[in-house]
């Protein structure tokens, strides 16, 4: 009997606002403990929450980006539970009426082995605004736990999918796509190490063909795509083995241990809290008008899919190239800047998706920290088009630019990579080579086309690569036909 895994994700994205969601306290990461905790963050007696409009705008942006219903009226609710880093004894969240309703994200699942790459639509159930809790720092004070409330009240958008994913690869593809999207629309910095983007993954298994969902276990707080892949694969295997051994799955929350590669139950659902949700009487319902939506719409950047189509139409680029260029906002912006600085589009696309991306991947850098800025790349590409250097030489120049040896022209000069433009000098080399390879010339004249290329190779070699190959072709042809 074949098994099928069913996966749904809940993602907490930290919103890029200046201040907390219900107070004016700053939200800079890494500050000294409790230095970003105002009276509201500490939950002193008598304090009240006031909703941050910037956080609402972020939610609307996300709703627009996934073509979702944006609620005209949504309600903040209190989720009640006791925990030392939850200062009010309740978290302000949204329960029955979230700000963003049903929407969808189209993901690109990469090829795996023989299975080719494919597209899939993942349905979004809802996205709601809520506040983050603080942090318990165990052992902060000798033998005691400390509470840091800097993070308490940080705005989050929790994005929940339908159980639409059927493999770890799909789940990771969705998470990556969402990760790009929230950065693309500028609502989240995407920093996973700092916890700006955290995923909870619900995993269950069932016999293929079955309509009924199996009992799910929730893997909490995955903050890397690699761990997500490993955790889902382990959890899936574990559930299948458990069932095949005659066991049963109990609903539970589990944690992934990257050291062992295993998931382990944290608490079972039977011990779970009754959160006693009810509408927060300190906050009015959140009303979003058509005008609010229109205003946010006007501030929205072009979305990846629209940009991809535009690149294809405007620059005549292939679907593959535009897909790669729009895989991140930064890469797309870099490409546009390169073209704007005078580079030819197809050439720029090749370089950005080729040499530049390869370099970034090798050094695990993002495009924003590229050692070669778009304008500098455009200058280099210009030197290829104007015949100053060959494509091969350009690669060498690019390497040098990357490690900071200067701009393209300076490096070409310093390394003496300039192509020969003086036809007299090239002709002299050709004559030398022809004189030294009489046999090859005869072969060519006897109809062996290959000999021509061999001769070009010899000439390029003799010019130490500085001859312009097109010019060499031209001159050689003339001489052989003479």
């Amino acid at each position: 009997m074949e098994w099928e895994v069913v996966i749904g994700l809940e993602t907490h994205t930290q919103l890029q606002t200046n201040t907390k969601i219900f107070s004016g306290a700053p939200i800079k990461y890494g500050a000294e403990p409790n230095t970003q905790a105002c009276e509201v963050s500490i939950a002193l007696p008598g304090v009240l929450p006031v909703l941050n409009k910037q956080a609402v705008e972020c939610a609307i942006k996300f709703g627009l980006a996934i073509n979702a219903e944006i609620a005209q009226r949504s309600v903040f609710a209190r989720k009640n539970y006791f925990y030392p880093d939850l200062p009010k004894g309740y978290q302000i969240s949204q329960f029955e009426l979230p700000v963003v309703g049903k929407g969808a994200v189209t993901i690109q699942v990469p090829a795996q082995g023989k299975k080719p790459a494919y597209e899939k639509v993942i349905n979004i159930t809802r996205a709601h605004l809520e506040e983050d809790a603080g942090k318990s720092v165990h052992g902060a004070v000798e033998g005691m736990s400390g509470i840091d409330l800097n993070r308490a009240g940080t705005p989050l958008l929790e994005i929940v999918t339908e159980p639409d994913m059927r493999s770890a690869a799909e789940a990771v593809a969705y998470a990556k796509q969402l990760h790009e999207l929230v950065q693309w629309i500028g609502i989240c910095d995407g920093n996973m190490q700092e916890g700006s983007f955290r995923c909870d993954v619900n995993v269950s298994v069932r016999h293929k063909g079955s309509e009924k969902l199996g009992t799910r276990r929730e893997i909490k707080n995955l903050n890397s795509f690699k761990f997500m892949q490993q955790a889902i694969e382990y959890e899936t295997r574990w559930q299948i083995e458990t069932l095949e051994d005659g066991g049963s799955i109990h609903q539970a929350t589990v944690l992934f241990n990257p050291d062992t590669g295993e998931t382990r139950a944290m608490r079972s659902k039977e011990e779970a809290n009754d959160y006693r949700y009810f509408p927060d009487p300190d906050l009015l319902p959140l009303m979003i008008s058509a005008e609010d939506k229109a205003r946010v719409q006007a501030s929205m950047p072009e979305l990846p899919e629209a940009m991809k189509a535009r690149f294809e139409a405007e620059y005549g680029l292939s679907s593959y190239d535009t897909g790669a260029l729009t895989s991140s906002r930064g890469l797309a912006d870099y490409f546009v800047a390169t073209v704007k600085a005078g580079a030819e589009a197809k050439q720029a696309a090749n370089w950005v998706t080729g040499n530049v991306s390869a370099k970034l991947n090798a050094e695990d850098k993002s495009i924003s920290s590229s050692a070669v800025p778009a304008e500098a790349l455009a200058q280099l590409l210009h030197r290829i088009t104007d015949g100053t250097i060959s494509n091969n030489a350009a690669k060498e120049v690019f390497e040098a630019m990357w490690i900071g040896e200067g701009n393209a022209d300076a490096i070409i000069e310093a390394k003496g990579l300039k192509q020969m433009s003086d036809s007299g000098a090239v002709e002299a080399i050709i004559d030398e080579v022809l004189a030294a390879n009489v046999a090859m010339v005869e072969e060519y004249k006897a109809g062996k086309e290959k000999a021509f290329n061999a001769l070009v190779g010899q000439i390029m070699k003799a010019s130490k690569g500085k001859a312009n190959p097109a010019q060499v072709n031209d001159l050689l042809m003339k001489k052989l036909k003479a």
Partner: protein
Amino acid sequence: MINSSLKQLASMLQAKKISSVELTQSFLTRITQYNPSINAYIALDEGKTLAQAKAADVRIAAGNATALTGIPLAQKDIFCAQGWQTTCGSKMLANFIAPYDAHVITQFDQAGAVNLGKTNMDEFAMGSSNETSYFGGVKNPWSFDHVPGGSSGGSAAAVAARLCAAATGTDTGGSIRQPASLCGLTGLKPSYGVVSRYGMIAFASSLDQAGPMAKSAEDCALMMNVMAGFDERDSTSLQRDKEDYSRELNKPQTDQPLLGLKIGLPKEFFAEGLDASVAQVITAAIDVYKKLGAQIIDISLPNTGLSIPVYYVLAPAEASSNLSRYDGVRYGHRAAEYTDLNDMYNKSRAEGFGAEVKRRILIGTYVLSAGYYDAYYLKAQQIRRLIAQDFIEAFKQCDVIMGPAAPSTAFKAGEKVDDPVAMYLQDIYTISTNLAGLPGMSLPAGFAQAKDGPALPVGLQIIGNYFDEARMLNVAHQYQQVTDWHQQMPDLKRA
């Protein structure tokens, strides 16, 4: 002087007949003399108080005094005041020194008023007799055997005993109006959203509202001018133009200044449960209104009987959540010894909260629990809307509604402590206005003789339409122009 109106005190101060320091000192002297027996104040800080009085004198001398500059007021201990012990009547916060000011405190500071101290109250404003306070009960200045009402019992006793010129209170289900009635004062609970709740320790957020407790309607109007107004730190604060609450007073100046005023008398407020002696006083007061030109209309508020059950679902539900922050982690009471986190929570809260607070946390937790939410909380919210609808219908027929503020005069201390439901029934006439968010006030209308005891004050309640406080204050003021109940003072030596 201690019986002077705020207006009179202000003119004496501004004419330099007396300094704020002298005036403040005279109240402090009375407090030293009488507070030990009455227990109206929880916290006093002569240094802070006199520093404010000195600053007020400087301001008066500079010629930029407001109507309340230099006037000594008492603040209910539910308001956070920077540097002041702020306990909310609870052991849980007995050691809490507020590091910030409530909006109301800021407003009085800016007006130059002097803070005499923090007044006693039922723990977390939960009670109708001030007997749930961790700091002990408060004596009714008219009779020390009797309670002052609650939860603003300390403020009520302080004003009645003239231990301050006026005071603040808060009213979630009657906590300004019932003690005002039992102590013979004028107290106003404004429409919900008129006074910012920022820095006012929350009991039931959707019902809590601060207001003045003073000797007269005129004094209440002056207090309201300072307390009311939009505050962006409270999302439920209403963005309305600043208004002068004394603008309607003394208009028009005729024999029948209330000619044409339609007063609705809800039959439900005069039904079983109302003391005959109280009913008599209210009827007499209505007769005065007739003479002032008002027209009396019989009305009905059919859902009045549901207001107590609805209130005792919604208020505890909100309270159970509002009081979760008192966990012993960051401030407030923490048990001395505990074995782990849960033990710390359990012991800290078990020790820090009194019985009535615990009762309401339990009720609130229960009605919000999975499986009970719809039957209790949701149903109560639906009935709350019906109760508000009753008033909307009533105000189509009349301008103001009148009736008793409390079903009886002050009862004896200890009389109802073991019977929570009897205690809850104290608020039968006041709770529905909180549920509807309407303004309500109580003003002294006379005295009723207890069977074997002293004559005790009776309060007449006026309920107005939304934001009709200025008119209500005038309706009360006209009554106080032709009666002197509000000027009567208890004899503290005999009480």
